[in-house]
């Protein structure tokens, strides 16, 4: 794979776009902040919806089972199935389920934790989160890729063999 560092975010994204468009390369960009105008579509909010629904339905169902079947108690003549009283705990469990689904779903989607990745061998990667702009090209013709990166003003280009 080839790792190239750029001076500006614009140069990075122009080079990445050209490599993807003209060379059909798999390119991943790295930066300390989300690229401006990035399309932020994700499946994780749907997972969160699922987690929230599971928390709500599970919580409500558990309370129904506990108060009507497993351990019914007559307190002040109130009905065993007192559904309004189940709402607060169900809501809390829904939020908890959604939040846990969010963080777990995010880690699974972006494949974290990953404490080591071969791209870490590139020196340029160590400056990404402090303000660097890096492109990682995982396939394609090495010569053509390097030419394109150089033409877009790459500051350093490293070839990493996984």
């Amino acid at each position: 794979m080839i790792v190239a560092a750029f001076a500006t975010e614009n140069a990075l994204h122009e080079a990445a776009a050209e490599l993807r468009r003209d060379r059909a390369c798999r390119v991943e960009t790295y930066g300390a902040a989300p690229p401006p105008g990035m399309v932020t579509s994700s499946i994780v909010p749907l997972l969160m919806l699922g987690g929230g629904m599971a928390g709500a339905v599970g919580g409500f169902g558990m309370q129904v089972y506990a108060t009507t079947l497993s351990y019914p108690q007559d307190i002040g003549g109130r009905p065993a199935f007192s559904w309004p009283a189940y709402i607060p705990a169900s809501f809390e469990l829904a939020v908890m389920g959604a939040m846990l689904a969010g963080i777990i779903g995010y880690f699974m989607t972006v494949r974290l934790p990953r404490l080591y990745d071969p791209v870490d061998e590139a020196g340029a990667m160590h400056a990404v989160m402090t303000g660097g702009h890096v492109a990682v090209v995982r396939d394609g013709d090495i010569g053509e890729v390097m030419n394109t990166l150089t033409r877009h003003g790459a500051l350093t280009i490293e070839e990493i063999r996984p």
Partner: protein
Amino acid sequence: MKAEAGAGVEDDILVFPAETPHSLTEHICATTLHEGEAGWTPLWWWLGLGFALSLLGMGIISVAWLFYAGLGIWGIDWPVAWGFDILNYVWWIAIASGGTFISALFFLLRARWRTSLNRLAESLTLCAALCAAIFPILHLGRPRFFYWLFPYPNTMGLWAQFRSPLVWDFFAILAYVLCSIVFWYFGLLPDLATLRDRAQRRWQQVFYGVLALGFRGSGRQWRHYQPVYGVMAALMAPLVVSVHSIVGMDFAGGATTGWHSTQFPPFFVFGAALSGFAIVLLAVIPLRPAMGLQPYITPRHLNILGCLLLTSSLCMAYAYVMDVFSTYYGPDPADRIMFAFRLHGLYAPIYWGTIVLNIVFPQLLWWRAIRLNQLVVWLVCLGVLVGMWLERFQIIVSSLARTQLPSAWGQYTPTVWEWSLLCGSIGLFLTTFLLLLRFMPMLAMAEMRTMLGNRS
């Protein structure tokens, strides 16, 4: 803490013009990683930690004695069976709310000013929520069985009483503490990666590297990060309102005089907002100069927080007025007797202290010059925190001391063990907060970099 009313144009900027994403990252990393001029741990931090640990030690002794001797060491008795335990719980959980209001609610409102404050505010939330969470356990007669509150299949065939607000409270605290940790950590992830890449010392590289879990700032990671953070914020905002509503229902669900009111859920949410904004200002004002945060937390932030404090104080005033109105408009003479006891009985100074500290003093913030006078604002915030504690005292104690039956009237005097437990919880709060201050970035660097955009 000098007045900055004359700061002119600086009043209206969010970040000083000279600051760039690079200078911000350098400054915050150097402070957190103890490098360069910020490489030594300042004296104020050591003094603060020493003070905090001494309070915490007092609390540990108090808890150890409580576990050994039981609840009899406290001043609670019939009819005042709730004392400092519940009082401190309600006080701390309200203080915890400020961070969530700022980081979640104002994120949804796209308020750019919250970016400089959200990490500090969320850290305060975590520490305060931790303090709140221990009190319901300590107040149990048999704390070792606290897990009985959790609905799990057991050989006794017992379940929690789901129709009781006290059980709702268990779920609310659990959800709030857990979700606050998740939200705080998720927001921190890119900054931990920055610290990992910036760290020079081996232990710091390992420490922040493990916590960052391999976040590298790839396009894929950012693409999923932003929507998830947004949804989390959208969940945290109603969560914080629900938590304080449930705390209010702990009281409203009882037929005790002065508690059985439909306005209690919003009443407690207003109180949470007031004490939450107060603790944020109380921390931010001294930390700005102490940690060199003036370029990022400017007089404009103080001005906005001052406005929020004033607004929540007015909401609180509305709730206090409604409390009086519903008591005297309502049909129950026992309520009126109890309220008269609040106004001019044994605990009257506590009621009037509440009004003065929570309502009267914050009215100073109508004036912009006062909102920018940090010493005055700091004192008002300190007053609000004391006032909110007094408010909890008068709600809990005066209601229980004057129940419907005159034969069951009583009074409550806290013992030294309750005071030491309160001091211990303050020590726990300060200790955890000081540790976070020293080892975690107190500004959300990734979010700030996005806000600063193309500055170079």
